[in-house]
């Protein structure tokens, strides 16, 4: 920086400097353009500050804008020199041309230099009362800029009070910007508030019934972006009674017809908030009915907009599954949809699946399973399994489709289908045993741990019905040490199951697997499980039977991927990032300029129990959503260091497979058997892989443990929350 400030004797900046000081107007303007061009490509032209500044006073509006632009970029680096610009700014703020007045006030607010801010008050005062609405609307936002930089200045000069008066301005655009500024100031104040210095009262934007009236009037006349601001504000308003809520809903209803999707979503948000207070069934029904068509239309917009809409629709359906019940076809994937749209559509289709449309859905899913995008294909197959579990009567057809897919012998299709079949067995243990031979025939095709683990689980579970079970499992026992941990765990359990069901044929293989697992395996999880089995088997075979062959409760498909409290909060944030991520804002927003860590620290510091609780809930929800079959698989024994166990758990996580064996109940027994009352929590903490959004809807099976264990979890959950993104 110092280098550039020393006047160069040659080079481009030298030339520019002489041109900037040229006696010819055209030449000076051209030089300014070149300076800006250099700035655009990232060259440092801050050294030309005084020379550019000289060209600020001009009648040429374009030139003025360019100089202003330059100032905005470099004011922070040259705070002492900015002061030279003040006079021109103040003069410009009084120019007869409103465009110049607005430009001056807009730019002054952007300079963010302490020195200039002190000179801002007078012109701002004037501009807020300007006769031209264009200047007033620009001045409104300037108050918010001022507050962001120096809150006390905005408060002491009464600017905020003035903004509140401007909510009654005759011009709708001014009203909208006054509202925007007040909302922004409110948000800034809340973000910057700390224990010691709470948000100043003046910054608080309380929407009174009077303001409400103004908002509703301005709504019809505002520009599209103004409407978004007004609607966002309406969603924050606390209605005094049901009648008022009704009134708001009725007045907002026409906004569903707006062409701008963000207006539509903001209107949906207002409805979702104020509908909570409605008791009139017919009105609620009417609103819901009118909400569907505009949502469907959003699905034909540009892919990015579509995706934002789909994420929000996904949330809305969790609250009101009836909104789009007849519109499933709308969500059929187009061949050229981007992957992120396709995956989101799949998720919504499952939500909308019912008895009457499941056939159409299945043939569609089968079609997707033959596309080229591997990830999408897998998700489509997974969706078939979700259908089977959600709609009992369709399970037979789903299994049929899965079998057809297995017959394609495309490797990843077969593997995913096997994983899904395991889930179907978990739900309907006795209906589809006939499929098992086909599955076993594909044993050699499997090379992914999850698929292998799933098939092994199936073999163990139905060992008594598979003649060559010990032979099949023997293959895995032979290669035991080369397998992934989740496959090892599954093999171990399956062999023990086989031994209990058919002791005569499994004697050899069971001792071999226990031997290998306890002696040569380097995973404490596997080792511990092997020890547990071994001791169980040698001390009390009946207890072993009760534990290992216990019946598991069937899995179900959850209605929601977020806990009810958070769902309500997110519905009040429709259209925002929170609703797009399906995470409460606290989990990802920074505090003012401090950054996200402030919130992070706050949570860790256990100061705000509510936030912490919420964060934990989110985490748990995320996990629940993550794994198809998320068991409370707290196998960690008492003698295990928590940290290590946690690492392994993280390594083997996302393996629905090995969790299958260890359903919660037997584990509780196990734990008590070994006198370990501490079902160590680390297994609750595996970071949900950020890969798939809360998509699959299988809840963690019977364990209430995640929730109750929650508060005991140390700081890990917070990291995970952030890790989600």
């Amino acid at each position, binding site marked *: 920086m110092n280098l550039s400030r020393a006047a160069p004797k040659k080079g481009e900046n030298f030339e520019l400097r002489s041109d900037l000081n040229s006696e010819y107007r055209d030449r000076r303007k051209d030089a300014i353009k070149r300076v800006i061009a250099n700035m655009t490509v990232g060259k440092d032209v801050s050294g030309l500050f005084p020379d550019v500044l000289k060209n600020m006073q001009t009648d040429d509006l374009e030139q003025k804008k360019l100089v202003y632009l330059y100032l905005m970029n470099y004011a922070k680096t040259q705070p002492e020199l900015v002061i030279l610009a003040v006079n021109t700014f103040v003069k410009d703020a009084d120019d007869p041309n409103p465009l110049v007045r607005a430009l001056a006030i807009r730019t002054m607010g952007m300079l*963010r230099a302490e020195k200039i801010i002190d000179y801002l008050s007078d012109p701002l005062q004037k501009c807020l009362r300007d006769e031209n609405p264009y200047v007033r609307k620009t001045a409104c936002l300037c108050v918010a800029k001022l507050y962001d930089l120096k809150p006390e200045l905005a408060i002491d000069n009464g600017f905020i009070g003035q903004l509140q008066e401007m909510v009654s301005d005759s*011009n709708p655009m001014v009203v909208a910007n006054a509202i925007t500024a007040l909302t922004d100031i409110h948000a800034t104040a809340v973000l910057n508030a700390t224990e010691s210095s709470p948000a100043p009262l003046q910054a608080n934007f309380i929407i009174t019934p009077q303001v409400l009236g103004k908002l509703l009037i301005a709504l019809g006349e505002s520009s599209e972006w103004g409407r978004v601001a007004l609607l966002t504000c309406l969603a924050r308003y606390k209605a005094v009674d049901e009648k008022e809520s009704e009134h708001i809903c009725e007045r907002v209803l026409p906004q569903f017809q707006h062409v701008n999707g963000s207006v539509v979503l903001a209107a949906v948000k207002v409805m979702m908030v104020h509908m909570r207070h409605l008791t009139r069934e017919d009105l609620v029904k009417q609103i819901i009915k009118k909400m569907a068509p505009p949502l469907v239309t959003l699905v034909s917009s540009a892919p990015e907009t579509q995706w934002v809409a789909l994420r929000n629709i996904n949330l809305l359906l969790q609250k009101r599954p009836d909104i789009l019940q007849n519109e499933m076809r709308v969500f059929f994937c187009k*061949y050229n949809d981007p992957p992120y749209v396709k995956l989101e559509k799949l998720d919504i289709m499952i939500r909308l699946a019912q008895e009457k449309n499941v056939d159409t859905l299945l043939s569609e899913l089968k079609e997707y399973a033959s596309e080229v995008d591997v990830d999408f294909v897998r998700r489509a197959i997974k969706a078939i399994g979700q259908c089977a579990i959600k709609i009992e009567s369709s399970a037979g057809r789903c299994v049929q489709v899965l079998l057809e897919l297995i017959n394609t012998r495309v490797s990843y299709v077969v593997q995913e289908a096997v994983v899904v079949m395991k889930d179907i067995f978990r739900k309907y243990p006795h209906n589809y045993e006939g499929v098992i031979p086909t599955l076993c025939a594909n044993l050699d095709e499997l090379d992914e741990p999850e698929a292998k683990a799933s098939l092994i689980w199936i073999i163990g579970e139905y060992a008594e019905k598979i003649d060559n079970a010990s032979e099949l499992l023997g293959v895995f026992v032979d290669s035991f040490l080369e397998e992934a941990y989740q496959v090892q765990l599954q093999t171990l359990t399956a062999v023990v199951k086989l031994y209990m069901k058919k002791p005569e044929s499994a004697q050899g293989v069971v001792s071999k697997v226990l031997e290998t697992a306890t002696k040569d395996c380097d995973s404490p999880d596997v080792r511990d499980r092997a020890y547990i089995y071994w001791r169980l088997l040698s001390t009390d075979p009946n207890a072993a039977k009760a534990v290992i062959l216990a019946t598991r409760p069937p899995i179900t498909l959850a209605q929601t991927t977020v806990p009810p409290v958070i769902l309500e909060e997110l519905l009040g944030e429709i259209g925002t990032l929170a609703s797009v991520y399906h995470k409460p804002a606290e989990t990802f927003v920074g505090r003012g300029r401090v950054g996200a860590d402030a919130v992070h620290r706050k949570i860790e510091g256990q100061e705000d129990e509510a936030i912490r609780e919420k964060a934990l809930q989110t985490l748990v929800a995320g996990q629940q959503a993550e794994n198809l079959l998320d068991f409370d698989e707290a196998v960690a024994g008492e003698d295990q260091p928590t940290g290590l166990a946690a690492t392994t758990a993280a390594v083997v996580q996302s393996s629905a497979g090995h969790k299958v064996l260890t359903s919660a109940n037997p584990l509780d027994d196990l734990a008590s058997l070994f006198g370990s009352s501490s079902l160590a929590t680390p297994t609750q903490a595996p970071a949900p892989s950020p890969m798939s959004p809360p998509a699959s809807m299988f809840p963690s099976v019977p364990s209430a443990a995640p929730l109750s264990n929650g508060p005991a979890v140390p700081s890990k959950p917070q990291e995970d929350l952030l890790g989600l993104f």
Partner: protein
Amino acid sequence: MASLIAILDLKGKPLIQRTYRDDVSPSQIERFLPLALELEEDGQAVKPCFSSGGVNYMHIRHSNLYLLALSKRNTNAAEIIIFLHRLVSVLIEYFKELEEESIRDNFVIIYELLDEMMDFGYPQTTESKILQEYITQESHKLEVQASVPITVTNAVSWRSEGIRYRKNEVFLDVIESVNMLVNANGNVIRSEILGAVKMKCYLSGMPELRLGLNDKVMFETTGRTSRGKSIEMEDVKFHQCVRLSRFESDRTISFIPPDGEFELMTYRLSTPVKPLIWVEAAVESYRGSRVEYMVKVRAQFKRRSQANNVEIFVPVPEDADTPKFRASTGGVQYAPEKSAFVWKIKQLGGGREFLMRAHFGLPSVKNVDDVDRRPPIQVKFEIPYFTVSGIQVRYLKIVEKSGYQALPWVRYITQSGDEYAMRTLQEKDASIQPI
């Protein structure tokens, strides 16, 4: 709310950027593409919005550019994403094409536009017609200094006062796009009509317009019986000039139009549509030697109508070579970059049916891992003087206080939407049969 807006090239290098709030450092822009690539490497689809290190990245793609907005707060993502799209369309109206070069050539005006379209991260004026009134490329040629058109902040922010035309005319184009998906066994599994009413308005003064359509709901609410068919529009969206509350109460479409060209309304119908143009393809593949196609097209609409510029895209294997075509009408071209051949028919009369045959060679060795891509057959067409839905403009009333007479002209057209597709059967491997 956006703290920063930037336009990046495909390598993630910012071509132009504008900071609106200083809570996000411009250096974060450079992190965008590496982050996106990282996500991709993890096997995830890169989503339009993601968060990293407390910064939220919201972006859209436009040809070879990324338009990126950054924010630290819980921003209204829908608003920002739509704003970015709007920015694209404004820039296109200014420069015809939006690409790296047009950005480099016009950075001054883009800065001006970014300054006007967004303030402190909040979208302001995005109507390109209004922007063009005071942000022009030839500003230095103007004798008089530009000033804010009062329209910017008017309640009627889309039309300036004092417009004059010698001849007052209005042109209405009713354009219906048909989206359709037909599965391999010939069933329509999804169809929808996306309609748009576009206007070209050459009217003086501040005219009040009222548009009457054969809208079923309107007939029902007013208790009038319609002569002929009425249609049930499922979702109607209006240009901001239309009074929404008026439409909500009695379905009247009343408005003061912007000057010149604009889209007055769009609507959607999901009533099942019979395919207007039916295409089926029989494929015979002799693995390792050749593949043969027989494509049949049938125009399933009334004889007096005719489809223009019909284009049928039939996908072929990526490694197909030496194409040979024979068509009973129109011309066929191989488009290897799309792995398809295109059958173009200039005019296809209602009720007509045509055939074409294609023959491709296939390499004798095939990579076993290659998955057969089976994109659907895509069809493009337009049928003038015809609407699938049966929508009709019943009247367009134009009232201006000077009392001039204005002529409305109406034109109807039906065309294929972005997805008019027919899925094909899994290729039958015919190599076992004797040749």
